[in-house]
């Protein structure tokens, strides 16, 4: 699946997007964050305060308990500040 990162999440991880293939044990958005955090310092830094991180699956906001099965695109970003 494709992951997208925005704003300071993107800056901390150091890339705007990537393709990943997480193990089958990673079932939810929250579990994906935990798995990503173990991939390296830059991920641990981006997700250090997991409570503030927002996620979207295929362009729709989701909570950490959302299932990732079937997702084409998952995005992680800080709280929004548009308008």
């Amino acid at each position, binding site marked *: 699946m494709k992951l997208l990162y*925005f*704003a300071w999440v993107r800056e901390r991880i150091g890339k705007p997007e990537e393709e990943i293939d997480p193990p089958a044990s990673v079932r939810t958005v929250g579990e994906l964050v935990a798995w990503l955090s173990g991939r390296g310092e830059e991920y641990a830094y981006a997700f250090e305060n997991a409570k503030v991180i927002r996620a979207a699956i295929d362009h*729709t*906001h989701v909570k950490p308990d959302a299932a990732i099965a079937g997702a084409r695109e998952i995005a992680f*970003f*800080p709280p*929004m500040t*548009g*308008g």
Partner: protein
Amino acid sequence: MVRLQREDFDIGAEIARLTHGRTDIGAVATFTGICRASNEGEAVAAMTLEHYPGMAEAEIARHVEEAQSRWPLLGVTVIHRYGRLVPGENVVLVVTTSSHREAAFAAAEFLMDYLKVSAPFWKKEERAGGGEWVAARNTDTAAAGRWTGPDRKPEAAE
């Protein structure tokens, strides 16, 4: 209509686009958000708006549909700019039209409140000490929460 663009918008032209040739519209409400030269007491030389292409349009369109289901609107336009903007430049425009003012005012405010907390845009300000991502404001979350009834939950609210 929802539009995301780098370039500026013309408020008069956008109003005319919704009202031209019609005699059923009795009220037009517009809100324009403008880039300020200071934030939290610090000077801001410019800001860059990042957005999530695809989701930003979809998220705003969802709230336009919601506004149309709540109020008897005759037209809605939302334009949000992205890229680098300097103080004094337009950032966002909401135009709502209806037969009467109540719906036009309320829908414009509803759309702005939700745009703030749920449309995927992020502002980075150029301050004296360097680039700084703007922190989300609790007052914005509270403002969006005002529109929440027992069966309606704003996605981005805590």
